[in-house]
């Protein structure tokens, strides 16, 4: 089983986790966006490799969506949005970099322990993929909670969805329903987010969630 196929898949999925880590400590929006672009490209490669290994042609579609939509269209659009909003300055992270990285490592450890322990029956490729995918998902969550900026949170969420796609393609023969749905949901999610960002801008001249947080419902 430990053939070239396995090694390449392992390398690509591991690269995805590494890029997730890179995302954790970016304190500028542009840099964050750039890492996310590489994240999506890595995902596209990984999915394409799975398509080749599993001989599943429909996975190439998923790879293409990851490449074109998440690797090109979204980063370009977000980049333009950042320029238009004039928010390319620093983004503050809520917790310190050191602590965030430690938390990220702990999450990766956790997902390895959980996933490798519960999937002894599955083939090695699927096991490793699931463990890596869970790491990417959890780090994506961490990116979301450590950002106070709406664009940063959105990028965190999209990296989380990349993890989901990795998991879905790692599960061999998973029906097309799910792949399309993931891609589709990203599309919708992006539209929604776009509307929101637009509206937030329109009304408050800021996309800093911190400014929104001043209002806490009843505590006026």
């Amino acid at each position, binding site marked *: 089983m430990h053939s070239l196929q396995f090694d390449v898949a392992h390398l690509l999925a591991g690269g995805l986790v590494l890029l997730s880590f890179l995302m954790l400590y970016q304190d500028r929006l542009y840099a964050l966006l750039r890492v996310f672009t590489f994240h999506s490209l890595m995902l596209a490669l990984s999915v394409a490799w799975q398509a080749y290994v599993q001989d599943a042609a429909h996975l190439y579609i998923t790879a293409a969506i990851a490449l074109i939509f998440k690797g090109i269209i979204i980063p370009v659009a977000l980049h333009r949005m950042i320029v238009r909003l004039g928010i390319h300055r620093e983004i503050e992270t809520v917790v310190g970099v050191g602590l965030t990285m430690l938390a990220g490592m702990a999450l990766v450890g956790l997902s390895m322990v*959980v*996933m490798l*322990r*519960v*999937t002894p*029956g*599955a083939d090695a490729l*699927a096991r490793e993929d*699931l463990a890596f*995918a*869970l790491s990417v*998902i959890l780090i994506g*969550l961490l990116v*979301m909670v450590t950002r106070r900026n*709406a664009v940063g*949170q959105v990028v965190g*969420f999209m990296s*989380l*969805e990349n993890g*989901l796609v990795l*998991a*879905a393609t790692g*599960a*061999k*023969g*998973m*029906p097309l*329903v*799910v792949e399309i*749905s*993931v891609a*589709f*949901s990203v599309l*919708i*999610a992006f539209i*929604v*987010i776009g*509307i*929101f960002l637009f*509206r*937030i801008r329109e*009304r*408050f001249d800021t996309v800093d*969630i911190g400014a*929104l*947080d001043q*209002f806490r*419902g*009843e505590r006026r």
Partner: protein
Amino acid sequence: MIAYLPDAMSAVLVIPIVSAAILALISNYRVSSRLNVLASLFTMMSAGLLFADRPAPGQFLFIDDLNVVFVVLNTFVGFTTSVFSASYISHELETGKLTPAYLRFYHAMYQVMMFGMNLALVSNNLGLMWVAVELATLSTVLMVGIYRTHEALEAAWKYFILGSVGIALALFGTILVYMAARPVIGEGLDAMVWTTVIQHAGAFDPALLNVAFIFLLLGYGTKVGLAPLHAWLPDAHAEGPTPISAVLSGLLLNVALYAVLRFKILLNASPQAIAPGPLMITMGLISLIFAAFMLYRRRDIKRLFAYSSIEHMGIIAFAFGMGGPLANFAGLLHMTMHSLTKSAIFFAVGHVAQVKGTQKIADIRGLTESHPVLGWGLVVGVIAIAGMPPLGIFMSEFLVVSSAFARHPLLALPLVTGLLVAFGALLLRLGGLAFGEPRGSLAPVKASYLPMFAHLAIVFAAGVYLPGPLVIWFQHVAQLLG
């Protein structure tokens, strides 16, 4: 799926989606609000037909004894809410809070949301169910933000982020279920078809199922509004239009709960997997007690009832978590009663907030004097939701408590504490709202009381006498839930 198009099950899906498309084109709000009511009525009637005409399960859609209950409840409350919505939004238009362009969007989204919820309920495919829940979530996010005020945007953003994270975790859980099913059923679509999956559940890898259930419970549990994951719920209820609050509380929470229940059945069918009950009991009790105490500190009337929804979803999760015929029966009954009562309360609250021009509890007083019909409607609703006899919720809560005493007396203690704390809080607030010197605007209210009183009448009737066939039906479903 297309082959048996004219049947009732397809109608439940086709009517909302087609009317959503039509409503998106109509700019006259009077026409579109009526059309919205009409479409909801037809959907409800087709749902009623499902009892008689039940198509064979396909690879994507199916109807069984469990989801037919949810579909009928869903479409019924969807219909009554559309009636309420018609009178509610004309007022919003007069006060200029919404423009006709937004109403067009609102009506189309209302039907999209109904489509999403119905699809989630009738889907026979775990992937499709997930897509449908996500669709329903996204459409409600847009509705919550429709006023575009500072508060509404924050509420919608919070709801969107938390909802997306929840839905992402649920998808991971779904993938794990597929991973567990694949070695037994084989690759491809069949391993995600519910009716096939449940037959083979006994042979699935239990460890994988356990992890999957944790993710599914956390994921869909976020949408149910269970306690550590509830943060989006009060904001979304308070800042969106009131018909949406009614639908969120009355329907969307149930749909998410239905998803959790499906996977609970799956775990029950696998003998070596962990028992899902204790997890649900724990989350349910935490929600109940947390929300019960939070009720005391509410100053916003819609938030008050939003927290009450968290409390009741906690009770329902507790009941289903305990399992067994009696507790499941109680859970089903409580879910139905809560949907009806809570949406009736929101119907009343919507008109109250409109006529008083505020949602602050302190600024609303003496409703029974200034607006008797509305005021007494609210009184009956709150008494019902607090669990006083002889209304329906008393009966279901009584069943939950008594089965808890019979089986886990120690668990009954926190349950009863939570119920009593919530009871006190609601009556305390009700006293101020309904009685005393009227405060605020005394202007007469143009309202359609029919939806509110229809719901309350059903709740009252159910508290006094449950028809035999209904009891048998619920008992049968309770057996299925295991």
